[in-house]
């Protein structure tokens, strides 16, 4: 009995000691940045780039002396691509002393972790969640996203298509299973008609891995009025659709968004041409902005391979943003940093001019790089900023 009691007391003391030691931080200790993201599972491809971008930013900032004289370090926790596990991952990084938390590039997958991190009073960034809900209204005043909001992405594409390409008639093809696609397409249609464009046809399918797009291809081909196709899909279904559409002899230009970024899928449609998309930047070494090409070079050196998509830049820039806000606030207090972030007006970050207000923690007026794929090769066309974004709803 005595042995048992002493064991229990000893155990409890050890637990307390462990608890206390994680709280106490000497002033030389690095500032911990936590990444509660998908390191495994199906969402991992979307979080992998931003994490590596974040790590590069941390290295760059540390090389210049850190933030307020303190070095930065990164800890990670795996959400396993499970939205519910996000809370646990956030708790894990918070327990390791995270002062700022980065979560998944998606509202649905990152919300749980973000709710936990903001509840613990830490500024939380989603790398590239495009849903305006990822902010004050949906999560809380400490939540920010480095993305260009989906309504803005849609407006950018609509305006570029109308004004720069001179297209007038669109055929809209959408996957209705993911919120991002629905928002992208509906906002595109709104802006398109506002500009004076015409929607001459639409089609919808509802599953992430439809195998047979014959029906969609036939419907698309039947519509001979269209100037181009606007496609709301991602790299797990879009390439298959494009392949079957092109194989059916349908060669109308196709326009898509950053969800189709990357050249790892191009093999599916050899010698693809007349494919256009908007991205955060060109990861192929040919971006008009030399800073982005530098980024790609440094990233490749640090991680052994080029970024798969430009989303990685959002990871870099959120670190830039937080560090900048902390320097201006002169402290690491989350509320002080929040106030500085909310004063951002076209801050010159890698991913582009970034602005936040106390009500809006997502970007709506920042340019995207429009790229084209001709004969299987990506080339930049122009950087385009939307003039007007459809009203956002939360």
């Amino acid at each position, binding site marked *: 009995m005595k042995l048992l009691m002493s064991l229990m007391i000893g155990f409890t003391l050890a637990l307390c000691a462990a608890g206390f030691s994680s709280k106490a931080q000497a002033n030389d200790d690095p500032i911990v940045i936590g990444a509660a993201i998908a390191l*495994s*599972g*199906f*969402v*991992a*491809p979307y979080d992998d780039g931003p994490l590596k971008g974040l790590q590069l930013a941390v290295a760059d900032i540390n090389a210049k002396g850190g933030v307020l004289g303190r070095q930065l370090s990164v800890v990670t926790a795996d959400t396993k*691509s499970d939205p519910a596990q996000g809370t646990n991952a956030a708790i894990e990084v918070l327990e390791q002393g995270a002062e700022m938390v980065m979560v998944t590039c998606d509202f649905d997958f990152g919300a749980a972790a973000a709710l936990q991190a903001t509840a613990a009073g830490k500024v939380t960034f989603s790398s590239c969640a495009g849903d305006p809900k990822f902010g004050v209204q949906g999560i809380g005043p400490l939540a920010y996203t480095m993305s260009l909001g989906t309504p803005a992405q849609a407006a950018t594409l609509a305006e570029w298509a109308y004004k720069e390409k001179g297209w007038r008639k669109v055929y809209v093809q959408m996957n*209705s299973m993911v919120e991002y696609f629905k928002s992208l397409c509906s906002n595109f249609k709104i802006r398109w008609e506002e500009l004076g464009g015409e929607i001459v046809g*639409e*089609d*919808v*399918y*509802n*599953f992430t*891995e*439809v*195998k*047979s*797009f*014959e*029906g*969609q291809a*036939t*419907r698309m*081909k*039947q519509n001979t009025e269209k100037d181009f196709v606007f496609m709301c899909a991602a*790299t*797990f279904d879009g*390439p*298959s659709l494009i*392949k*079957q559409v092109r*194989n*059916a*002899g349908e060669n109308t230009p196709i326009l898509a968004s950053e969800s189709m970024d990357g050249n*790892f*899928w*191009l*093999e*599916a*449609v*050899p010698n693809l041409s007349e494919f256009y998309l908007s991205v955060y930047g060109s990861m192929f070494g040919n971006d008009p902005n030399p800073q982005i090409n530098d980024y790609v070079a440094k990233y490749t050196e640090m991680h052994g391979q080029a970024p*798969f998509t430009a989303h990685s830049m959002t990871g870099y820039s959120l670190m830039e943003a937080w560090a900048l806000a902390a320097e201006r606030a002169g402290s690491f207090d989350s509320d002080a940093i929040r106030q500085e972030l909310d004063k951002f007006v076209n801050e010159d970050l890698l991913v582009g001019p970034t602005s936040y207000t106390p009500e809006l923690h997502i970007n709506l007026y920042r340019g995207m790089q429009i790229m084209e794929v001709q004969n299987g090769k990506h080339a930049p066309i122009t950087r385009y900023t939307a003039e007007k974004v459809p009203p956002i709803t939360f």
Partner: protein
Amino acid sequence: MIFLQYAIDALSVGGLYALAALGIGLIFGIMRLVNFAHGDLLMMGCYAMFMLAAAIWPVTILGGVVIAILVAVITERIAFRPLRSADPTILLAASFAVSFFLQNFVLMIMGGRALGVDIVPALNQHIVWDSLSISVLNLFTIALSVILMGGLSLFLARTRIGIHMRAASEDVRMARMLGVRVNLVVATAFAISGLLAGAAAIVVLGKTGLVLPTMGLRLTLIAFVAVIVGGMGSLTGAVIGGYAVGILEVVLGGLLPLVILPYREALIFTVVLLFLLFRPGGIIRVAALKERV
């Protein structure tokens, strides 16, 4: 003319589903096992073809089929043989575990990103006649499903092991007593299902150009439904069920107004549900499987 185009599309989609249904139907007939890992056999075949894409195309597709067969036979030996006489629900759970294993295995090694590949460029060609467009792949799919089904029927009717397989699917104990080597029969059945999965893999990769660890799931579910709709225990039923689901999918895709299109999957399953309520035995009813009372 447009109806003809839709008909061709329907046969193409149906052909793929028929191939998948055949693979599931064969194993179900022999062992009352719905092999939920069947789609993952297809997935492994596709990844094998992805890795062999640089070789000449006969090697690529042969490699894919061989891998699918190997995985099928190995999973039978390791996961299903110990459970040979267990309740079908337990077998089903085991197939879930196998599927989980295969998907995570590929996920761990290759990552979750969709990877693009073009295995047989010739399949991308299309024949244009008037306003009709028939892709070589469509013709290939239809031909493949017919040939494989015919071949399988002949195999089951004429070869010794085929006859043993049919015997075992009717009454395992009796078959064993009469000298049928059940282990060999089951292993052969799985090998054939692997072959069917490999064939379907060629079609899928030809159509979609992408490999993804989860790519087998939807096809497995559709094949499952197709087998039941077509009539369990009948191979012809499985093929007919596959074509039926494919035709339904394309017809609804063509006819439904835009507002209802996102609900297409729900409508397909409503039709399936209603059909099963009125004809639970499926399109082709197998006498031996009817409940006695």
